């Protein structure tokens, strides 16, 4: 798995990579994650289940992205792919430069690749580019529509005297919400919790009845899934992939406009008595499951592995078709990549790169993992 976004960063992409990797390990695959170094966290680390993470010491230059050098990451990626005996490279997130470079080098070296886009790009929509900004989960930032909340909350508090709001999370827009609270004297009606650790999110959610999501852009929105699992009725803006996440009876959708949102909240409050939280939870349990996601991803991997090997000329002819000038530029970039790869093969042949022995989990998995050098030694002990 390659991405600029991984632990210790928190977010949708990071969680996706981690949980998918864990489920794939349980299905018997070997998973290695490649990301850039975060501060002091550089080198090899191991996570639960023997998930190996390479924190490559390339400094991020903008919003957690490594500096795009086109060919700079070729040596380290080649070394890692050979030493870990990788068969398929899975890149995550359109914003990640490391991901794109890794996929390019992997294709040059003949590996099969899979790409998951976690943004709203879709490759056809240019307009959404302006809206996509890098954020943390439950963050009070422009993309998450904190400005919408500032309009909606006072109106709802005025209409319904017994409605209280609990706001969890932190970010640049928190100040605006605080100001709104002061302005309308809603200190006893609006509770600001600040940043909520992930382990405590559930206990915060179950104290409520309706979950309000005011995002202006959202590819998927795991937050509303979490809310539905806790038995909350969701009110959300009709943006991106949100309408496809929950069944129609668990969500009330609205346009990203204060008036429409207030109407939606009104509707939600009226249908609230008919909601059974336990029933909602049971339904959600069956709808979404990371093991199911892993199995579906495995099917995609199998299809990718079955694709035929393409020679350099075949690939270049595909790039040429991208455009009059763009096609030629892409071809040039790929030819240089190919030549650099050949040069690397002469400088440091693949036989000189040692294969890493496989991790063997000890019986006490809580205490750590052991590396079975006994088996390794038998193959390579004497010449």
């Amino acid at each position, binding site marked *: 798995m390659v991405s600029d976004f991984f*632990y*210790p960063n*928190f977010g949708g992409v990071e*969680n996706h990579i*981690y949980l998918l990797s864990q489920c794939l390990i349980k299905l018997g695959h070997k998973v290695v994650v490649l990301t850039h170094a975060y501060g002091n966290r*550089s*080198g*090899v*680390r*191991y*996570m*639960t289940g023997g998930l190996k*993470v*390479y*924190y*490559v*010491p*390339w400094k991020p230059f903008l919003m957690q992205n490594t500096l795009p050098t086109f060919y*700079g990451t070729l*040596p*380290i990626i080649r*070394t*890692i792919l050979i*030493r870990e005996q990788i068969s398929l490279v899975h890149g995550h997130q359109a914003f990640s430069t490391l991901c794109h470079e890794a996929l390019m080098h992997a294709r040059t070296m003949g590996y099969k690749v899979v790409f998951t886009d976690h943004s709203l790009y879709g490759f056809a929509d240019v307009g959404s580019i302006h809206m996509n900004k890098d954020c943390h989960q439950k963050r009070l930032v422009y993309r998450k529509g904190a400005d919408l909340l500032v309009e909606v909350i006072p109106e709802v508090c005025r209409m319904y005297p017994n409605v209280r709001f609990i706001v969890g999370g932190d970010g640049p827009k928190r100040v605006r919400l605080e100001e709104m609270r002061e302005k309308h004297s809603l200190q006893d009606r609006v509770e600001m919790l600040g940043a909520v*650790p*992930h*382990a405590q999110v559930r206990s915060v959610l179950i104290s409520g009845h309706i979950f309000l999501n005011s995002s202006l852009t959202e590819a998927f929105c795991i937050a509303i899934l979490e809310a539905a699992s806790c038995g909350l009725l969701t009110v959300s803006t009709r943006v991106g992939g949100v309408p496809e996440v929950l069944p129609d009876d668990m969500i009330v959708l609205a346009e990203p406009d204060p008036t429409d949102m207030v109407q939606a909240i009104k509707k939600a409050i009226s249908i609230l008595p008919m909601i059974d939280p336990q029933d909602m939870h049971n339904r959600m349990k069956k709808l979404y499951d990371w093991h199911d996601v892993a199995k579906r991803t495995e099917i995609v991997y199998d299809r990718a592995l079955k694709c035929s090997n393409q020679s350099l000329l075949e690939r270049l002819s595909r790039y040429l078709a991208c455009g009059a000038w763009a096609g030629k530029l892409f071809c040039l970039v790929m030819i240089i990549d190919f030549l650099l790869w050949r040069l690397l093969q002469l400088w440091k042949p693949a036989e*000189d790169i*040692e294969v*890493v022995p496989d991790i063997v989990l*000890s019986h006490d998995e*809580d*205490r*750590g*993992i*052991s*590396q*079975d*050098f*006994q088996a*390794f*030694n038998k193959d*390579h*002990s*004497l*010449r």
Partner: protein
Amino acid sequence: MVESCISNKIYSYKHECKWPNSEAADVHNIIVRKSRSKGFLVFFSALLILANVILLFLIKDKSIAVVFWSFIWDVLIVKLLLRKPVEKESVVVMPALGVQLETHYVSGKIIRRFVPIDKILKPVLLECVTPVTCYWSLSLIIQEEAELMLVFKELRPPVKMLVPIWKALCAATGSEGSLNTFTDDGPCC
């Protein structure tokens, strides 16, 4: 008495047992093998550059200073690229006393570092990641020291040569050979 020997293109590993009837000392050597092709390549390219400059001087009437500086530059490049000061690095394991780490240079200089046995907490095999490559290294965790002590300071032998040395160090220091080499870093969810 040579007990075992492993070699590859760059290094060769020799395990010797001094005074085989007692367990006084165990010597593990990593010796750098001389490479002829690299030397030939460097000399040839230096010669090519010099010939080029001399030709320029003779045909295009460039000043002799250019030839002179180019010659100096060539000598510096050759010295830099062919500089192989390290002949071998050794680890002498004395079970009751400690571990002596030696670096033998081609010039005859020997640098020795001794670590008493009770100061060694654990020998560890780690993977080091640089911006361009990834390699194994053998280090010692020393009591009351924040930094790890590298067993091989100058050389980067392959892991198949490091494993027997690591096992010997584990046996001498009494640490368990294969458990708890890595710690668990999980997210807080």
